[in-house]
Structure formats: C-alpha cells, structure tokens
C-alpha cells in the first residue's frame, strides 16, 4: 500500500536529508528521462515488511550469509521459518541475489517452501522471491521462472498479503525479459489477473498490486500485438473502469494503477471500440471532472495529479477515435469543457506539462464538435484561454489550435472571438519566435478576417 505521508515524515527526520533528497531526485529524474528516450523506462516496486524502515542503516547480512542460510535450509530441520526471515533480508542486496540464484537447487528450495504445508514458510518464501524480483539484474528474473506457475495459481487464492506479494513479484519480473513475459502469457497471467481483481475487488492493496502487475505487462514493446488483444477480450477493462469511481473511501492508489493501465491500453493500440462500448469515455470523464474540481480548488494531495494525468490521456486518445456524431452519447452528458479549462489554468504553474496535456484534450474535444466550441463561448471561457497564450512549452500552440477549432466552425464564432479580444492577443503571438505559434496565429487570423472583415477596419 502506498503511504505518501509516511514517506514525507521519514524524509524529514534525516539530517541533511532535504538537500540530499533533492539532488537524488534530480539525478533520478535525469536518468528516467534518458531511459524514456531510449524506450527503456521500467520501474519495479518493493513491498517492505511491517517492521521495516526504509532508512535504517541495518547492516545487511551479506553474500556469505546467503550461502550459509541456504545450506541450513537445504539440509532440512524444523525451524525453517527462522532462517527464511534472515534470508529474505539478505536477499535485499543485489550481489547476494546473484549469488543465491547461482547456488544449485536454490530456486528449487524456494519453490518447495512456497508450495509446502507450512503457511508461514510459504509467506517467507514468497518474500524471498519478491526480494529477488526487485533485483536490478535481469538474469535474476529468469531464475524465478520455476516459481511462476505457482505464483499465478495463488492469485486465485484468498490470502491477501500473500496475494499482494505474488502480484508485485510477478509485476517486477514481467518486463525483465521477453522469455519471462511470454512464459507468463502462456501460463495464463491475464485470466489470472482478471480473476484476482474480481475476487479481491474490495481490497485496496490487492487491487493496487494487480493494477501494477498488469501495467508492467502492458509496457512491453510488442504489447499491442501480444498482450492487448487478450486483455481487451477479458473482463479486465470493465474491472479497471469499475475501480475508477470517485469514491473517496476506496483510495487513490488502486485507481492510479488502473488508470495507468487504461492509458497503456488506449495509447498503444488504435482499437478503442471495446473500451468505448464499455463506457470508458464517460467513466474517465466523470472522474476527471471530480478530480479536476479538487485540483482547481487547491487540493494539494500529491496523488491527485498522478491520477489526473492518465485520465487525461485516456480521454484524449478515446476522443480521437470517437466519431463526432457519437460524441454526445459517449460522453453521457458530462460537461467537459469548463472543467478542462479550469484544469489548464490550475496546472499551469504547478505542472505545466500536465497543463499542456489538458490543452491537448481540449483540442480533441473541440475539433469536430460544434457544441463544445459553442460552450467555450457561452460559458465565457475564452478569456481564460487567451490568458494562456503567452506561455510556451507547447501550451500556446495547443491553445491556438483550440481557438482555431472554434473559429473554423462558424462565422458567428469568429465574430464572437474577435469581440472577446482575440485579435490583440494575436498581435503578441505573431511576434513570437516559435514558428508553430506564428503559423497557427496566422491561420486563426485568416479565418477571422475572412469571416468578419469589418473587424479589420476597426
């Protein structure tokens, strides 16, 4: 379970931590950006024990202990659990992980304990596997293959903590190698995930873990051919959508994972028919509207933007494949125009990248919908859009597109736009350095002048 408050508290307690933390974050951010450009962006998650603190500088047992512990466990005896706990701690260390998988029969031992008659040992064994799954070395994931059919089988069991660990373990090893991913697909990971979410749909932690596992599966490069068709044919889409309810009790974390899964589905594949048929657009829009309202009100819960982001993307891409005639029924009466405008303005200074994505969604909404364009005018939202025109990083380009969409519809709209002061805003944008901005400004200008030449004489 995600506990942001705990993190902040811990970070604050360290000496010199704030500066270190900032530096660390900057470096991480740089590394992540580069990884994304290389199409290698993958993350793993580690579930900590109840009694663990991330920051404790506990002396790690080390490699030698891994070997010793394994030998003790291998030779039998009744106190297995007592040795499994330190083993899982020892396996936190990457070099110990490598040592362990090279030991003969080590995986065999873990699998045996995983499926044995002692429930405590099962739990400890899965913890060991989970530590291994978090390894930065991709060879470790392949070593975990013998455990996968059991991890998948246990997804339809009832023990929640155990299931959670199985899910994060599977999610961690998924992206590490093609072989692992294909094996998991062959072993039925998709129906297993669907069944798991169904059984545990009232448990926050398990749904979050399952969402994470599915997200990992969807990150593979050939997901569009190998994974997505099967996912769309399963009950997963409707389950993911059912998690996206604005129910404050259910918690952000599972919704975050499910929304990112939906984003992966909508952005990797052009086929949105099934999702649209299941009301994905309406569901995402209504949640987006509730969240957008909260963000605009200044709600500083950091998790909200993590959920707003994938929702925006889903809506944006779903809109792009929704035929204009069906737009109204697909949206189900949800008014998007005003909330989106509010959101752009609210995010402009805190998360400009997200503001740009919001403007993109507005573009897709207004492209072929006269109704939406009309709403922009009648709800007096244009002045707010005009205020965005000075801002760069792609925001003004997108906003100009929106305004151009409006102008393109009707002569009356052009007149209204001119009355609202668009022309003077354009004089500023025409002078900007960005070629796209200038081109779009000219396009808008052209449309206005042609529609209402009397404006020019004014």
């Amino acid at each position, binding site marked *: *379970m*995600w*506990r*942001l408050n705990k993190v902040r508290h811990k970070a604050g307690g360290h000496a010199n931590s704030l500066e270190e933390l900032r530096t660390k*974050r900057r470096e991480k*951010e740089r590394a*992540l*950006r580069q990884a*994304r*450009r290389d*199409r290698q962006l993958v*993350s793993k998650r*580690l*579930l*900590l024990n109840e009694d663990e603190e991330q920051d404790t500088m506990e002396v790690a047992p080390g490699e030698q202990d891994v070997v010793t512990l394994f030998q003790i466990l*291998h*030779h*039998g005896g*009744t106190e297995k659990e007592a040795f499994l706990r330190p083993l899982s701690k020892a396996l936190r260390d990457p070099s110990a992980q490598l040592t362990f998988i090279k030991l003969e*029969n080590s995986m065999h031992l873990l699998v*045996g304990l995983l*499926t044995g*008659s002692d*429930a*405590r040992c*099962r739990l400890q064994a899965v913890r060991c596997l989970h530590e291994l799954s978090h390894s930065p070395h991709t060879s470790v994931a392949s070593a975990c293959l*013998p455990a996968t*059919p059991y991890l998948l089988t*246990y997804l*339809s*069991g*009832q*023990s*929640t*903590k*155990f299931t959670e660990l199985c899910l994060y373990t599977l999610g961690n090893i998924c992206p590490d190698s093609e072989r692992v991913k294909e094996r998991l697909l062959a*072993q*039925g990971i998709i*129906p297993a995930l669907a069944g798991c979410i169904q059984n545990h749909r009232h448990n926050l932690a398990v749904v979050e873990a399952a969402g994470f596992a599915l997200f990992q599966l969807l990150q593979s490069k050939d997901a569009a051919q190998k994974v997505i068709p099967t996912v769309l044919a399963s009950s997963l889409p409707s389950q993911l959508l059912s998690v996206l309810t604005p129910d404050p009790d259910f918690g952000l974390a599972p919704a*975050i994972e499910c929304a*990112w899964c939906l984003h992966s589905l909508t*952005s*990797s594949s052009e086929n949105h028919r099934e999702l649209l048929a299941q009301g994905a657009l309406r569901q995402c829009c209504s949640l987006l509207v509730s969240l957008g309202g909260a963000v605009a009100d200044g709600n500083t819960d950091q998790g909200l*933007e993590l959920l707003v*982001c*994938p929702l925006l*993307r889903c809506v944006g*891409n779903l809109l*792009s*494949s929704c035929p204009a005639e069906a737009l109204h029924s697909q949206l189900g009466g949800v008014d998007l125009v005003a909330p989106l405008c509010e959101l752009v303005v609210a995010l402009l200074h805190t998360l400009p990248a*997200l503001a740009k*994505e919001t403007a*993109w969604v507005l573009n*897709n909404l207004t492209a072929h919908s006269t109704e939406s364009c009309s709403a922009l005018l009648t709800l007096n939202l244009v002045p707010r859009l005009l205020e965005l025109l000075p801002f760069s990083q792609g925001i003004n380009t997108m906003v100009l597109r929106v305004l*151009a969409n409006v102008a393109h519809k*009707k002569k009356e709209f052009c007149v209204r736009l001119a009355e609202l002061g668009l*022309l003077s805003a354009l004089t500023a944008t025409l002078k900007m350095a960005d070629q796209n901005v200038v081109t779009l400004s000219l396009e808008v200008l*052209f449309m206005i002048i*042609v529609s209402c*030449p009397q404006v020019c004489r004014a």
Partner: protein
Amino acid sequence: MMLQPDVVRFIAMGESQTHNGDEEEGFRGAAEQQVEGNPFTFSPQLLRLHRDHELFEDGDVFRHMYLQDLFISEAEEQPAPSVSEFGCHISGCRAVFSTLHEYEHHYNSLHRHVCCSCHRSLPSARLLDIHIQEWHDSLFTILAQKQDMYLCLVEGCGQKFRTSQQRKDHLIRLHKYPPDFRFDKSRKEKGTREASREQRTDTAVEAADDVCRSEGVCEVMCGVESNQLEQEESMETHASSEEAAQSEDFSASAQTPETNTERLKPRYSYRVPKTVCFGHGSVRGFRGQRGRRK
C-alpha cells in the same frame, strides 16, 4: 490593423470563394475550393498520441518517480490488533498464532478450499472444483470414458482432454508449465495398485525417508508424528518416468502408473495433515534422487 498587401490579396480571393459555401460549414467549403497558392490550410485535427510521444515524457517521468521514490509499506495505519496466542480451530490442525494476520494467512492458505471427501486443501476454489470432479465424482469417471472431461488448469483456456496425461502434456507444451507441477497429479487406476506398490516399496520408502529430511516439505509432521516411513501417497508414475527423463530428481526405478491412495492412506495420513493436499496423488515430499543430493 495594418495588413500586408499580399495577405490582403489572398484574403480577397478567399472571400470570393466562401460566398458559395453554406455559412454553417465554415471553412470547409473554402478548403474544398482551395485557391492555388493559398497557404491557409488549417482544419481541425484529432491528435492521437502514441504512448511514446514526447508530449507524454514529463507525465511518464512523474509516474515513475512515484513508483520508485515513494516507496510503499505494508504497515497499516493502525497497528495490527494483537491477541493472545490462539490455535487454529480446524480439527486436526495444530497450528498456533499470536496475531490475527498470521491466522488469516494460515487459514486462507491451508483451510480454505478443502475437499469434504478427502479433506485435502487446494489453493483455489477452481482447483478444488476440478479436484472433486476428477477424484470423487463417479459420474465424471463414467463420462470420461467416452468424452473429453479433463479441463485445462489454466483459467481462460477452457480446453478439455480425454486423459489427465493429455492434459498434462498440454500444460507443458502450450502453457509452459513445469512437468512436476504440484497441483496436477493424475488419478491412477485402482486395479494395478498392488503390483505397483510391491515394486516400489523399497525404493520409494527409502527415498521418502531421505527426501523428507533433506527437503523438509513435510518435516513439520515428520518430526512431530511418528517416524515411520510412509509410502508416498501416489505416484504419477507414468508421468514421473517422463519426469525422470526430464530431471534427474526422480528415482530411476520404473514406477508403474498406479495410485497407492487407498492402500496407503492410513499410513500417509499420519504424516501430513489431512487438510493439506496438493492435488490428487501429489507427493508429500520429494521422491528419489532429489533427496539424496546434499
């Protein structure tokens, strides 16, 4: 507002064209009657962005910062309720606990999906259903002689097979399952049990003892209950000979495809709690050579 002369010219040309169009159409009409050289070609466009699009870069980085930096913890907001030590209330189970979580996990892992006929525990409701059908349903046995009744264990696959061996082959070939998957042991014919038991007695017993100590799967009961050697519950011998070829873990001695279930039940049941089962005919420990390797 001052306009450049050439822009004015374009506009004048554009104007004459649009007179013909329907007002409602806006500029669509103008676009269709495009004047040569008119640089104004805007039309509203739906922008579909692929997940790798650069517009998504910042949001993706944000997301992964969350996944990596903000670690997650299992601890509940409130500390887990602590209770004084208590035992599992399932008769025959001797486990004892000091926290509710432990008990929950124990119960969910071992007592949840229990077969009422043989008291074996299966990992999931589905596997339990399959177990009951294949082991305790006489109608199944009859039907199985004429049609494909053995269901694939992978949820969503739905394929059925005439024999459990065929199903096993399918699991291995298509779903890449290991040949020694513990939750799929086929039920053997009762007829030849005697013969097989005789044959296997020495090797199996020897192996079992060895195996049990070294692997420790059922050592809980080994130590607690009597030390008498017990026959493995049933050997998927046909399969195991195949397994022997595939992994050196099983003893080389030929084991016939029988089940020793009925004959051996009393002995086996002392050793492992009745409530634990890994599918019919599953091995309680490891057979053969596996245990011997130290």
